[in-house]
């Protein structure tokens, strides 16, 4: 693979990452969100795969496969189960901030990510590192989704969006986070999602509907 192809593909994947993030802000249907999330996972796997090809590491290849399995396969599946259990009321009802404002905020957050990431890019200017701001932007957008979405599954999506961003930053910044660490991280994310999914179930048992904004029994 020539250097230019690598860069082109890399940028394409990163663009996909950002685009899917914005889409997640845009769309309200949980089912659509999950599909978009799977696409994003695929883009992430592409970034990992490209890194593996470019640096020629077997470990990275394994990581790419792992990401593909986890983020395109397992996590969307778990999410779908969570949403399916919710029942017909699966459409996201009015987020705390309306869509137009959300998109505007996403733009601002992306700019902020660019501004903040300058030192990161400057440390080792390269094709991969210059895409770091996108990863950071995805993290911030994910955080924003987390604080503006009412339903438990969509909060879950926000959390995973953040996590995708972090993984992207990890893949872009480095070729060699120790495999054990990477594995541990993946496992932890998986477990966190599992926990949240179980809790979603329990919330449904105890509260009936899973509007997180209604969880306000514990307060001062």
């Amino acid at each position: 693979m020539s250097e230019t192809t690598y860069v082109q593909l890399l940028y394409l994947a990163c663009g996909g990452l950002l685009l899917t993030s914005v889409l997640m802000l845009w769309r309200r249907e949980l089912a659509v969100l999950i599909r978009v999330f799977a696409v994003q996972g695929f883009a992430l796997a592409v970034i990992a795969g490209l890194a593996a090809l470019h640096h020629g590491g077997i470990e990275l290849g394994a990581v790419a496969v792992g990401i593909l399995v986890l983020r395109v396969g397992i996590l969307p599946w778990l999410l779908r189960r969570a949403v399916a259990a919710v029942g017909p009321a699966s459409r996201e009802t009015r987020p705390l901030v309306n869509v137009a404002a959300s998109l505007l905020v996403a733009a601002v957050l992306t700019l902020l990510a660019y501004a903040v990431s300058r030192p990161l890019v400057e440390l080792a200017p390269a094709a991969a590192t210059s895409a770091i701001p996108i990863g950071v932007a995805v993290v911030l957008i994910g955080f924003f989704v987390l604080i503006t979405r009412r339903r438990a599954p969509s909060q879950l999506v926000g959390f995973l969006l953040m996590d995708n961003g972090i993984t992207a930053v990890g893949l872009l910044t480095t070729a060699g986070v120790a495999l054990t660490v990477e594995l541990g991280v993946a496992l932890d994310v998986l477990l966190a999602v599992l926990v949240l999914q179980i809790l979603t179930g329990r919330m449904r048992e105890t509260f009936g509907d899973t509007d997180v904004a209604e969880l306000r029994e514990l307060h001062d």
Partner: protein
Amino acid sequence: MITLLMLAPVGLPVLGALAYLLFGWRPATAWIAAGAAAGELAAAIGLAAVVDLSGPQIAVGGLARVDALSVFMLLVIGTVGLLATAASPSYLAAEIRAGRASMRTAARHSLLVQAFLAAMASAVLAADLGGLWIAIEATTIVTAFLVGQRRTRAAVEAAWKYVVICSTGIALALLGALLLNYAAQHTPVRPGLNLVGLIAAAHTLDPAVTKIAVAMLVIGFGTKAGLAPLHAWLPDAHSQAPAPVSALMSGVLLSVAFYAILRVKLVADAVLGAGFARALLLVMALASLALAASLLIAQRDYKRMLAYSSIEHLALIATGAAVGGPLAMAAVLLHMLGHGLAKGVLFLGAGQLSQTDGTSRIAQIRAVAARQPVLAGCLGFGVLALIGLPPFSIFASELGIARAGFAAGLGWFTAIALSLTAVAGAVLVIHVSRMLLGTPAEGPGAATASPRLPAAAGAVLLAGLTLSAALGVTAGPLTGLLHSAAVIAVGTP
């Protein structure tokens, strides 16, 4: 031998967890948990001796490392863990009697508590930041089910908030760790995330990147340590968890998370000088203190009250860490231990109280002293220990933090922190005195005698208080360890 000693603090609880998985919870197995915690404590003491004799040790292929600081944290985990697990059998038995739990729940509880202990031990034994991160994230996952154990609406709500907020925070820490790793990649030595290596390579780390990384790491681990801005899970989770778990979470988990901040601060100080981490920690600490003190004033629930007091104490610890220097660091470490003991005693006592009185509302509990003198005594003196009255050790550590703060030229910040602590202390005393003192209500309901405090639980509470008082009188054999741990925590300027 050393490897064995270093594996024991993780391995023994894992074995305990396996035991509960295989045999379930019953009177015969009830004390396995305490046994494992005692073993963990013993291993910590052994390690302390080893570290004292021959310095830091590395084992398990470089994944685990132990120095005076981690040994001290192990001691904290072991001590408070022993207190909490020793109080568990009677607590679980009472829960089962009251129909709030089954044998299965008890077994799962014990299993998870063991896993919790193992995760905390591995956090302090981890040789690199990645391992530390994984272990701390693992504590979230394990305790999520413990918080939600009761499956009431409130418990599930608390668990949800706990997991969402903590996972978010810890995700930020992960981002920080990755960025730090990125910075480390571009140094000649490439230390990765190894805690010692990072400090050794500090002068070659890129300061701008490190700054962003440290900010993320401190906010992220600060979430688990109960520091503002992502502190809000704490009162919910600590008030809903079963008493022994609250004791462990408040008494140890927060300190373990703060241990991570201490490690990050070492790197930050080496790269950026003391100013950056200090400013960050001070702002977070003062915000947390102000918040805890304000919310304590009108508090209506005594478990939440204790939880806010934990925020306050961690903020105080953060103030101490921000001050830096051997005295402040020794005080911070002593404070962790003292707070663990006091808060452990208080949460266990509060659990006892909510079992007998059936409510956690301050306004609904009166005249405990007249009904259950021993429990009231433990709670009363526990609160006095918590607000830093001698002879309890928090007095000594608060004094140390304050003294170091004034000496470091942070007089105003220290004075504000002290005033807020004083307000919080005064409010705690007022709330608790309303519950403990007074004349028991006369009437038909008053005739039913309150159940007595189970002997084991009483012994645990008294032991915790006694230990705290003894530590306040003299650190005794801990003195050396405390000082070498403080030296490590200060780092080499």
